[in-house]
């Protein structure tokens, strides 16, 4: 046998593992060959404020950064970060459960408990890891995860990483959720995963009904409030607070990379056994903790967001003005009414969407170009996210840019 094996070790044909991505390479090349600037390779050479940057050499208004509350340049947020870097150094070089928990990691978790008025808070290195870790750890073999089909990639990846049965239901469809809850075998653990605001279309979930039904069927409920923190709900705790069901939500997932203006993810909960997750959640254990400067900046930002009433009101005013203005210009939008700080402008196809994106960039406006598979129903979207620091004049300027670009490309 041994001789036979050595005799047959002729050079095998190598298989290029990247060949499976050829269709993506082709789509991208076609797009760029048409002369469009690469939508996925933008560089901000200078960032002037939460709403302005020099992008690819142009002075540009930022309308696609999720920097909802404009905290990235807040004086106190920056000062806290600088001080922590001076005092604690540039990084942690370690896991939260070993040498990576500094004073400010504890403090930012205290700030989260204050913000949400909850008993427990656990900070992850990104929002993606928070969903990945919490979902994959909570729902194990034999359990059922019931989730909205339009859930964020981090939620799907959390499902894929665990061993639970994964059951999607039609987007925001209360009846579809209820049917599936009823069919789960008796005695099985159930985790319902919802989002407050869905980031592609900017629409809000009917959490009031969904949380009630989930609880009635004995399920635990996790709500991702990444796109609502700081400006939806009386205390800015999100859609669950706004719809009066936050006390029935078992786990809230959030991020620092939107309203808080830094980076990091978290889970808050009142579950009495919550702290055990620090020991069993692999994306929490097997990665380095965030730098102390990020933690200090985040804690300061979260506490300021608790008193951000005026900024909140201005953000909503911006969202309403832009939504109405774009509708009046004849653009097709993702929602009938402004439901969040995200306004999705629906493009006829990827080619027109890319042309429109480029025309806006040349006007001096940055928005997100979103396309399948990230988008629902194969749509191409120009996704706009407003900031509390956008002035009313900037919003009018933005509308003028949309009007000129839309007419030039032939969308309106």
């Amino acid at each position, binding site marked *: 046998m041994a001789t036979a094996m050595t005799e047959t070790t002729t050079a095998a044909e190598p298989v290029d593992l990247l060949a499976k991505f050829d269709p993506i390479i082709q789509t991208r090349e076609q797009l760029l060959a048409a002369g469009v600037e690469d939508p996925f390779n933008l560089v901000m050479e200078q960032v002037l404020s939460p709403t302005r940057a020099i992008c690819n050499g142009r002075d540009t208004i930022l309308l696609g950064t999720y920097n909802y509350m404009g905290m990235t340049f807040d004086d106190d947020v920056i000062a806290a970060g600088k001080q922590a870097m001076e005092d604690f150094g540039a990084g942690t070089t370690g896991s939260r459960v070993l040498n990576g928990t500094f004073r400010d990691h504890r403090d930012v978790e205290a700030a989260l408990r204050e913000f949400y008025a909850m008993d427990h808070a656990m900070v992850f290195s990104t929002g993606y890891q928070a969903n990945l870790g919490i979902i994959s750890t909570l729902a194990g073999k034999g359990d*059922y995860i019931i989730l909205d089909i339009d859930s964020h990639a981090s939620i799907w990846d959390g499902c894929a990483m665990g061993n639970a*049965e994964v059951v*999607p239901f039609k987007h925001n469809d209360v009846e*579809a959720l209820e049917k599936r809850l009823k069919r789960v075998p008796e005695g099985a653990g159930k985790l319902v995963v919802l989002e407050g605001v869905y980031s592609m279309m900017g629409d809000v979930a009917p959490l009031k009904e969904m949380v009630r039904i989930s609880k009635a069927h004995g399920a635990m409920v996790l709500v991702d409030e990444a796109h609502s923190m700081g400006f939806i709900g009386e205390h800015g705790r999100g859609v669950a607070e706004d719809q009066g069901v936050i006390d029935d939500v078992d786990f809230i997932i959030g991020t620092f990379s939107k309203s808080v203006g830094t980076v990091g993810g978290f889970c808050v909960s009142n579950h009495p056994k919550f702290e055990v997750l620090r020991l069993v959640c692999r994306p929490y254990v097997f990665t380095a903790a965030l730098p102390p400067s990020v933690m200090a900046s985040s804690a300061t930002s979260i506490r300021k967001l608790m008193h951000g009433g005026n900024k909140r009101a201005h953000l909503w005013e911006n969202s309403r003005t832009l939504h109405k203005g774009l509708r009046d210009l004849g653009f097709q939008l993702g929602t009938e009414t402004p439901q969040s700080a995200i306004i999705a402008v629906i493009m006829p196809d990827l080619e027109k969407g890319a042309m429109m994106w480029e025309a806006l960039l040349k006007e001096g406006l940055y928005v997100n170009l979103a396309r399948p598979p990230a988008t629902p*129903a194969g749509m191409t979207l120009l996704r706009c996210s407003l900031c509390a620091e956008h002035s009313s004049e900037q919003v009018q300027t933005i509308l003028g840019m949309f009007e000129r670009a839309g007419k030039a490309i032939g969308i309106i």
Partner: protein
Amino acid sequence: MSPADVDAKIRTLIEPFNKKGVAIEDATTFAGDLEFDSLTVMDFVAEIEDAFDVIISMNQQAEIENWGQLVAAVHKLQDS
């Protein structure tokens, strides 16, 4: 319900999704022969789930590539 009955019932359910009128045999694949994208799969699966009052999880769907496998899986699910 016998496998033949399950087959017949799903055959009526798939009609609106089989836009090109592909002839369906046991070896007919959903992704390849029927060109189902992920959204079509979701809607079609939801129709079957409602008609048979079962759950076909994503984990189970991953094991089902062709018609014969689907009929066998649904037949097994409705009995359990």
